[in-house]
């Protein structure tokens, strides 16, 4: 550009004659300029890393899970027994997050609670995933009559109010860690099944297209290498978003008295206990469980959003 700003004639005249010899070159080299094609996950990972909020969420969750595993072991306090002289202490150096009405250390209980809440969330998401994969996979893969019957069933079940069914189940089965997970998955798998079916059908279409375009041997490889990871994207996002909704559901159930029962604790049950305490000024009993629920939901949500953007093929270049 700079060069051309001078009077063009003189600039052109000054170009050395040797520059006008044709270059012998291999035209195929030009292809190599194009961006190297990354594997799908690597590509998605690179894009996810650019999303600072999502990375923060991921980092938070990793720390949270590690702490939920190790913190209770390291803590000097017990989950169920407290010292009566330590009732309702505000946060101090000895009790970072204070103590509850039975003198139990809130910090310690929070990590036990983290185990339960995260376990409920992750277990519910994984069970949803397995049922969804089987149901949606069969519907999507078989297609035709089987598919339309299975989808009709889903359509009928889809209208069921999720939380009401969960409440009803827990009223009958009685609340426990096990029954809560069962109740959450009994209606939770439907969303996953729909997504899996859609993805499987897409995959099937690709398969047809590919089979006609390529020689048999490589079809399976293309599906495994390129298409399967591609269709896994929305499913992974769905798993990521199921976890916080299950954590929320457990907290909600605790509030109705249908959550984890004492002396065990989940964040939901602790927050529920804290609700009444707050009016007498013992804010820490609500604040810390509520903070952990909210931060965890936040982290899963931003991670889910980030994954959705990272997997979106439309954004791929």
């Amino acid at each position, binding site marked *: 550009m700079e060069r051309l700003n001078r009077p063009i004639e003189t600039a052109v005249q000054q170009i050395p004659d040797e520059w006008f010899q044709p270059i012998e070159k291999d035209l195929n080299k030009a292809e190599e300029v194009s961006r190297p094609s990354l594997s799908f996950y690597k590509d998605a990972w690179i894009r996810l890393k650019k999303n600072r909020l999502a990375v923060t969420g991921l980092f938070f969750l990793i720390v949270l899970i590690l702490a939920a595993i190790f913190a209770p072991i390291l803590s000097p306090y017990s989950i169920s027994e407290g010292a009566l002289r330590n009732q309702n202490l505000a946060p101090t150096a000895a009790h970072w997050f204070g103590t509850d009405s039975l003198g139990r250390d809130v910090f310690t209980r929070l990590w036990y609670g983290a185990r339960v809440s995260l376990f409920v969330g992750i277990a519910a998401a994984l069970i949803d995933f397995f049922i969804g994969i089987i149901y949606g996979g069969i519907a999507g893969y078989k297609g035709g009559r089987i598919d339309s019957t299975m989808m*009709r069933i889903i*359509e*009928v*079940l*889809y*209208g*069921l*109010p*999720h*939380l*009401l*069914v969960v*409440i*009803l*189940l827990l*009223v*009958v089965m009685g609340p426990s860690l096990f029954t809560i997970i069962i109740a959450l998955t009994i209606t939770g798998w439907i969303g996953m099944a*729909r997504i899996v079916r*859609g993805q499987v059908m897409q995959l099937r279409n690709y398969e047809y297209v590919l089979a006609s375009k390529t020689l048999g041997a490589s079809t399976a490889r293309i599906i495994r290498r390129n298409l399967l990871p591609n269709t896994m994207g929305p499913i992974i996002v769905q798993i990521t978003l199921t976890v*916080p909704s299950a954590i*929320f559901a457990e*907290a*909600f159930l605790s*509030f*109705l*008295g*249908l959550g984890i029962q004492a002396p065990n604790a989940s964040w939901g049950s602790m*927050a*529920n206990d804290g*609700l009444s305490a*707050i*009016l007498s000024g013992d*804010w820490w009993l*609500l604040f810390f469980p*509520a903070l952990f*629920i*909210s*931060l965890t*939901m*936040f982290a899963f*949500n*931003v991670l889910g*959003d980030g994954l959705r953007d990272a997997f979106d093929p439309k954004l791929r270049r």
Partner: protein
Amino acid sequence: MAIYLIRRFLIMIATIFVIATMTFILMHSIPGNPFTTQDRSTSEAVQENLNAHYHLDEPMLTQYGIWLKSLVTFDFGPSIKQPTETVNDLLSRGFPISAELGMWTIMIALLSGITLGVLAALKHNGMIDYIAMTLAVLGISVPNFILATLLIQQLAVNLQLLPAATWSSPMHMIMPIIALATGPTAIIARLTRSSMLEVLTQDYIKTARAKGLSPAKIVIKHALRNALMPVVTILGTLVAAILTGTFVIERIFAIPGMGKYFVESINNRDYPVIMGTTVFYSAFLIFMLFLVDIVYSILDPRIKLHKKGGS
């Protein structure tokens, strides 16, 4: 169109049938008898009422038939806890209050959610977008019962701006509505934003701009209507979320709505009330889903092409 509606109607009936049957089976699978073996001693009179209403001595199938009939005739029998009241009394007393709370909530959530979403999309990647979307993720991350308690603590206890409980004046309604509407507002804002962004890249928006229409007209006439389609489709789910939200909010704010009775019935194991209310709620929600589908098919002239229902 007619075929589509009939199909949707049949699915609605099937879903209500499933939930009614499920309720019946679940309640009768409680060890012993849900209507008699309570640790709380139920009075003779109540017991007689229950026997009369549920024909507890008849075979199961007959009882099931009677249960279905009571649904059709909308007669859910007496409550265990309040012997003088029937489930119908509770419903007719609580429903109008819950409905009022719910209506305000959904209206405010729609209004503020759509506004936020549209603004965020129009200022894509700008400050407003960033703030609105951070607020929105926060909104879906903070459970409503926590928000409600925080509101009470700050606005009612600390600042003494608003009354803490009951449902007797517009001032009393402010906090429950905020607590209940925040989550749905956040969901609507996120959905509106993403669908608005998508719509704004469509060729028909470019065409409208190429016609020289004003930006306001383009947004309102061409973009908004299309962008709000997905919002219409999740309205049913939102109503469900708000409805379950009322269980919590009504209890915290001591609002004498249906949700409060429902939660009490759960705590008291008042099975007739649980059964009746569950089925009533479910039927209501399923009917809402049906209505939403009809509204959608009116708004979208292409719906006739959707041979296999929306998905």
